[in-house]
C-alpha cells in the first residue's frame, strides 16, 4: 500500500517540490547503479532518515514490508541457488553457504547449493526494491499530488490541461474505490455471497457492479466538467500557478546533496568500483 499524502509542516514537506523530485530521481538512479548491499543499506538508511524527518507513518507500511520481506527471502534464495556473480571484495563467491534441499534428506539431498555470491546478489536486488519503494512512498507522503502536477506542467512539453487531467484522474481513484465498496455492500445486502462459488461465479457476481460503477463515474465526471467550466477552466492559456516556487537555502542544499550524491556515486563506481559487487 502506498501511503497517501498528508499536509504537514515538517522540513521535508516544506521543501520545494522540484528539490524533492530531484532527490527522488537521484536516489532511484543510485539504487539502480549500485549493486553492493552494504552501500544500498546505507542509501536506504539515508532515505529512512529523510522519511523520519518528514514524519512518515512507518506503521502504515507494515503490511507492505512483510510482503517485501517474503519477496526478499524468495529472491535471495533463488538468486543464491541459480546465479553466481563476480564479487569484487569477496575472495570466493562460489563458496556454498547451504543447500536448499539439505543433506539429511535421504535420496535427494544435498541438492540446489546456495552460494555466498548469489546470496549477496539476491540481497542486493531485494534491497534495491526496498529503497525504491521507500523513496517513492516518502516522496508521495511529503509531496501533494498537485505539487506533482505543478512539477509536470512546468516541463516545457506539457500543458496545464494535461497536468490537471492527471491530477483529476488521481482524485477519482479513491472515489471509485469507495463506490465499489458501497456497491459490494449493496449486493451483499441483497443476498450475494462473495465468499462462496467458483472463480467464474465470483467474477460474474463482481461484474454486475460494473454497469452502475461506470454509469455513476460518467455522471460524476459530467457534473465535474460542468463545475470546472463554471469556474473558467481553460479560459486562459496563462493559468497562474499559485505556488511560484522559489528555491530557498534548504531547497538548494537538498539539490546539492542529491545531485552531488548522484555524481559522486557514478564517479566512485566508475573509477574506484565503490558500490559494486
Amino acid at each position, binding site marked *: 500500500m502506498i501511503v497517501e*499524502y498528508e*499536509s504537514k509542516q515538517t522540513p521535508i514537506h516544506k521543501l520545494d517540490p522540484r528539490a524533492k523530485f530531484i532527490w527522488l530521481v537521484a536516489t532511484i538512479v543510485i539504487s539502480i547503479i549500485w549493486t553492493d548491499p552494504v552501500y544500498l543499506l546505507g542509501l536506504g538508511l539515508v532515505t529512512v532518515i529523510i522519511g523520519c524527518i518528514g514524519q512518515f507513518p512507518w506503521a502504515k507500511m507494515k503490511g507492505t514490508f512483510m510482503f517485501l520481506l517474503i519477496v526478499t527471502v524468495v529472491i535471495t534464495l533463488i538468486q543464491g541457488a541459480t546465479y553466481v556473480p563476480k564479487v569484487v571484495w569477496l575472495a570466493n563467491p562460489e563458496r556454498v553457504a547451504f543447500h536448499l534441499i539439505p543433506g539429511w534428506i535421504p535420496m535427494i539431498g544435498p541438492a540446489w547449493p546456495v552460494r555466498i555470491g548469489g546470496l549477496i546478489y539476491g540481497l542486493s536486488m531485494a534491497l534495491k526494491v526496498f529503497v525504491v519503494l521507500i523513496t517513492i512512498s516518502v516522496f508521495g507522503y511529503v509531496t*501533494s*499530488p*498537485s*505539487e506533482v502536477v505543478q512539477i509536470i506542467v512546468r516541463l516545457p512539453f506539457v500543458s496545464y490541461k494535461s497536468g*490537471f487531467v492527471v*491530477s*483529476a484522474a488521481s*482524485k477519482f481513484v*479513491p*472515489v471509485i474505490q469507495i*463506490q465499489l465498496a*458501497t*456497491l459490494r*455492500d*449493496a*449486493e*451483499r*445486502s*441483497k*443476498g*450475494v*455471497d462473495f*465468499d462462496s462459488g467458483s472463480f467464474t461465479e465470483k467474477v460474474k457476481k463482481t461484474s*454486475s*457492479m460494473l*454497469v*452502475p460503477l461506470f*454509469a*455513476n463515474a460518467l*455522471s*460524476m465526471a459530467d*457534473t*465535474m*466538467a*460542468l*463545475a*470546472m*467550466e*463554471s*469556474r*473558467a*477552466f*481553460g*479560459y*486562459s*492559456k*496563462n*493559468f*497562474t*500557478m*499559485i505556488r*511560484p516556487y522559489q528555491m530557498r537555502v534548504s531547497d538548494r542544499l537538498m539539490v546539492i546533496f542529491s545531485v552531488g550524491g548522484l555524481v559522486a556515486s557514478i564517479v566512485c563506481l566508475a573509477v574506484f568500483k565503490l558500490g559494486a559487487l
Partner: protein
Amino acid sequence: MEPMIVSLKDVTFSYKGSKRQALKGVSLDVKEGECVAILGPTGAGKSTLACVINGTVPRFIEGKLTGDVVVDGQVPNQVGTAQMASRVGLVFGDPDTQLFGMTVEEDVAFGPANLGFDYEIIMQRIKRAIEDMRLQGLEQRAPHRLSGGQKQATAIAGVYAMLPKIMVLDEPTSMLDPEGKARVFSIIRDLNKSFGMTVILIEQEVDDILELADRVFVMKSGEFVLGGTPKEVFADVDELREVGIRVPGIVEFGNLIGADRTPFSVEEAVSIVKSGAFDVLSDTLASSGPNREVDASNERAQDITPIVEAVDLEFRYPMGVKALDGANLKIYPGEFVAIVGQNGAGKTTLTRHFNGLLRPSAGDVRLFGKSALNEPTWKLCSKVGYVFQNPDEQLFCDTVEEELRFGPMNTGMDKDKMEEAIRDILLDIGLDKYRQVWPRYLTKGERQRLALASVVAMEPEILIVDEPTTGLDWLESLQILDYLERLRREKGKTILIITHDMNIVSLYAKRVVVMANGRVIGEGTPREVFSQPELMEHAYLRRPQIADVSDILWGEVLLTPHEAADRLKRSSRMNREVAGK
C-alpha cells in the same frame, strides 16, 4: 426603470435529442442585490434555468435555446461560459464534484488562476474568500477531509473568489446535515445582505427561504406557476400543495387558524395568536397525519422482546476513527424509529451492524433475541433489509422487474411467491408501467422507490432506510415515507430510518433515537425529544418551527400545524365558555 442584472424574456429550452421542453417561455427579472428563491419539484427545470443564466446551457450542455437572456449586460450564449464565470458564480448541490484542489487554499484559487490573474491578486482573493466564508485555519486541509458544511463553504468560496456579481446556488444544502445547512444558509445571508451580491437560490428548504428571499418563484414543468414576495407566494397554500412544495409549518398554522396575515417567523405566529388576530372557528382542520396514534403503539411495543438490540457496540474504522463508542439500542417489533444526529455521529455505522455489513470490535448485536455476530450478511438480509442512501449505488439490473427479482433469487425465495410479491410491490410503488425500463431512465424519486422496493421484495421483517429523502422533493419524500408507513401498519414491518429532516420525524416516527459521538445520547417520542433543548443542541438538531410556537404559547411541544391549530381551537372555546359564564 431600474436596470436588471438578470433579464430573461420568454426563454424556452429543449435538451439535445429530447422533444420535451425543459423551460417553457420563462421570463424573469432580477434587480442587483436582490435575493431570489426558486422552488419547485425535481424535474421542474430549476437547474436548467441556473445553467441558462451562467451560459453553460446551451454552450456546454447542448440543446435548443430561444428567447432573450441578458446577464450583467452580456448575452451568455455569445460571451462564453468561462467569461461569464467572473460575472455569475454557480454552486451545485454535491460539493464533492466541484472541489478540484488538493487543499482548501488551492481549491479557492482554482477559478482566479484559470482567469490568469497575477499571483498577488490570487492570494488576496484567497485570503478574502477564506475569511468571508469562515474557513480560517482550514487553508491547508484536504477538501475531502472536511465536513459536509465546510466542503460546501469551500465550494462557495471557490466561486466567490472570482468575485462574481451574481451567485446562483443550486440546492446547496441538499446533501448536508442540519449543522452544515445552518452554516451554508448563514453564508448565503452574508453574501446577499453583507457583501451585496445578487443571489439566486434554488432550494427545497422552504423554512429558511421565508426570511432570506426578497422574492420567490415556484416552477413546475418548465414554467413559473407562482411568483412574488414570500408573503404573496406562501399565502397561496393550495397552489403550493398542488405543485408539491412543502408549506412551511407556521404558514400552514396561520392558514389553519384563519390568521389575518400570514406568519413567516415564530415571533409573528406567536404575536398573531396573542393579539387574537385570527378566526379559529374557520373550521379547516383536517387530519393531522400519521402520527396521531403514536404513543399507544409505542407503549405496546415496550413489553415485548426487542427485535434488534445493540449492546455496548464499539467499532473503529481501519483508518483509526472510532465511529461507535459503546452504543446501546433496542428496537421493538412494529416500531417506526428515526435515528437522528449530525454527520459522523455513528448512525450509519450502527445500523450497518444489524445486517452484518460491519462487525463490531466489541459488544454484541442481537436479532430476535439471539446474537447475530457470526451470521453472514447474505443470510441476515432476508431478515434485515438495508436500503442505502444513494439509489444509484444499489441498482444493478437491466430492467425494473429484474431489479426486484435480484434479491429474492439470491435468497432462494419460491418462484411463484416471488412473482406474486413483485406484482404487488410494483403496483404499490406505482412503477408497474415501467416493468421493462432500465432503472437509470427513472427519475431520482422513482429510483429511490425502486431501490426500497428491491429490498422489500426479499420480505425482511426489519427495514433500515438510510436518508430516504436526500435529494428528493417534498412529494417524492412523502411517497417514500407513506410507503414505509403502510409496510409497518399493514404488514407489521419494523422500520428504522436515518434522517436529518425533523419534519419527516414529526410526521412519521413513533420513536426518535438521538446519536452523537458514536453513542445513543437520548431517545423518546418526537414530542419528548423535541422537548429537550439541551439534547437537541448537543446533537445539532433543530426542531420544527411549529414546536417552537406551541412551546412559547402553551408550554407544550406540538408536532404539526394541525395539532397546534387544534390546541388553539380548544383553548379559544374554553376561554369563550369561561367568558360566557
